[in-house]
């Protein structure tokens, strides 16, 4: 074990932290929007919309993320049609390809988590809201959604942690995030063990923070479970 090398590698590896965080936050935010839309479509009662959203979830949950990243990055770039389209300024950049793949992947998983949470809201609460004179959309916004979001938090926390780790796959399409930098440094020093331990520790810290944040959100959203002061 070369402790000096591990310590010296830290500043350079933390240089990739900003990109890793951008990938995490960007794809989780966009993924949440996708998940919300897809979950609503799946519960919309419209056959076509339900079928399309179910197909999207099936494909993106059923294939490895690495394959999705390669398909979007190397695959799409092979078509002249896409290279000539308005999408190319985005798809040309490995950054946006990574964000797109991560977003579509987490969107599929999260939509299922959200759908389950919405379905788990007791029917009695919805009926009570309707009896008070709320319209369907209003009841959804005020009653169903807040309860569902609280319900989904533990499962969503899992997804956040998986996404933190999934960003490391962006290194396969030339992005120099934490893992990418670790791999480049290993290529220069051949110290596989030491440098991957440092990279692993960085992800561990990130996930510690992520799980604390989710815990905090759970605590904030369940005031009725706490003893009154």
């Amino acid at each position, binding site marked *: 074990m070369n402790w000096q090398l591990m310590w010296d590698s830290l500043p350079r590896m933390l240089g990739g932290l900003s990109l890793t965080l951008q990938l995490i936050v960007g794809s989780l935010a966009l993924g949440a929007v996708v998940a919300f839309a897809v979950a609503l479509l799946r519960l919309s009662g419209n056959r076509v919309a339900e079928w399309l959203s179910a197909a999207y979830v099936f494909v993106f949950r059923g294939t490895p993320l690495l394959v999705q990243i390669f398909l979007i990055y190397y695959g799409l770039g092979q078509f002249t049609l896409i290279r000539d389209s308005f999408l190319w300024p985005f798809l040309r950049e490995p950054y946006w390809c990574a964000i797109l793949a991560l977003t579509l992947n987490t969107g599929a998983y999260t939509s299922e988590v959200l759908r389950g949470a919405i379905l788990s809201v007791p029917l009695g609460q919805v009926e009570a809201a309707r009896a008070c004179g709320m319209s369907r959309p209003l009841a959804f916004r005020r009653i169903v959604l807040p309860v569902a979001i609280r319900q989904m938090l533990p499962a969503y926390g899992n997804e956040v942690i998986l996404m933190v780790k999934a960003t490391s796959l962006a290194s396969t399409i030339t992005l120099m995030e934490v893992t990418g930098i670790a791999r480049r440094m290993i*290529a220069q020093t051949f110290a596989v063990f030491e440098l991957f331990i440092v990279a692993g520790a960085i992800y561990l810290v990130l996930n510690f923070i992520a799980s604390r944040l989710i815990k905090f959100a759970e605590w904030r959203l369940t005031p009725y479970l706490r003893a009154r002061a």
Partner: protein
Amino acid sequence: MKKIVSALALGAMMAAAAVATAGTAGAKEWKTVRIASEGAYPPWNSTDTSGKLTGFEVDFANDLCKRMKVTCEFVAQDWDGIIPALQQGKYDAIMSAMTITDERKKVIAFSVPYGTEPSVFAVLNSSPLGKALNLGADRVDLNDQAAAKPTLDKLADALKGKTVGVQVSTIQADFMDKHLPKVEMRTYDKIDNAGIDLTSGRVDAVLGDRSVVEAIVKNDAGKMSVVGPNFIGGVIGEGMGVGLRQDNADLKAMFDKAIGEALADGTVKKLSTQHFGYDISPK
């Protein structure tokens, strides 16, 4: 007190015995030599459709093993882990177009070189870089710093604001770091992926060993071409050798002898003409 002394003496004796056995174990008779190659670097090495390693280095290794009277076993190993896995003993030798460099010599040993190649750029035919990289020199010897400098300066100018693709952990990556630190470099696991990104326009140029760059260019016939001078010497190194663990001096001696014979009797020339179309023997 006496007891401690005798215990120490016994300990020392056992340690000496252990060293002695380790010494004989190190000098074991080599019957099988496991050789690792990337299998994604034609014409040096590649993988056929059935997953078998082929290419110049496989044919050449078979010839060397015959000379050394050992059995060869081939292992496919990704480039970015090829040195650590050698150190861990997953195989005994690397034959994967690996250039002998000072950095690598710190961690592994090398045989004498069996091949040598310049590095070149490739660009898309539609790119203005094709003209800009025509630096007015056929060959730049990086050992001769003073003579190389004007050409390198012109090169840096031509590539300003451009992106160059190289394979990770190669002499070409070192070349970019040392001579073109201001040019954006993207590193790829495999050189073919850099070629794919050149086709799609994500990188403006690819830098690699000449034969490999030529293979990429040929694959995408008519769309890209090799441009500019051949870079040799300096970080580009003095040729490709067999990578070995530093404590296997006996195996190094065997490889050195076999490679010497193969160079002398024209086997390297014959095999390389067959795979490359020209002679890659080091002069």
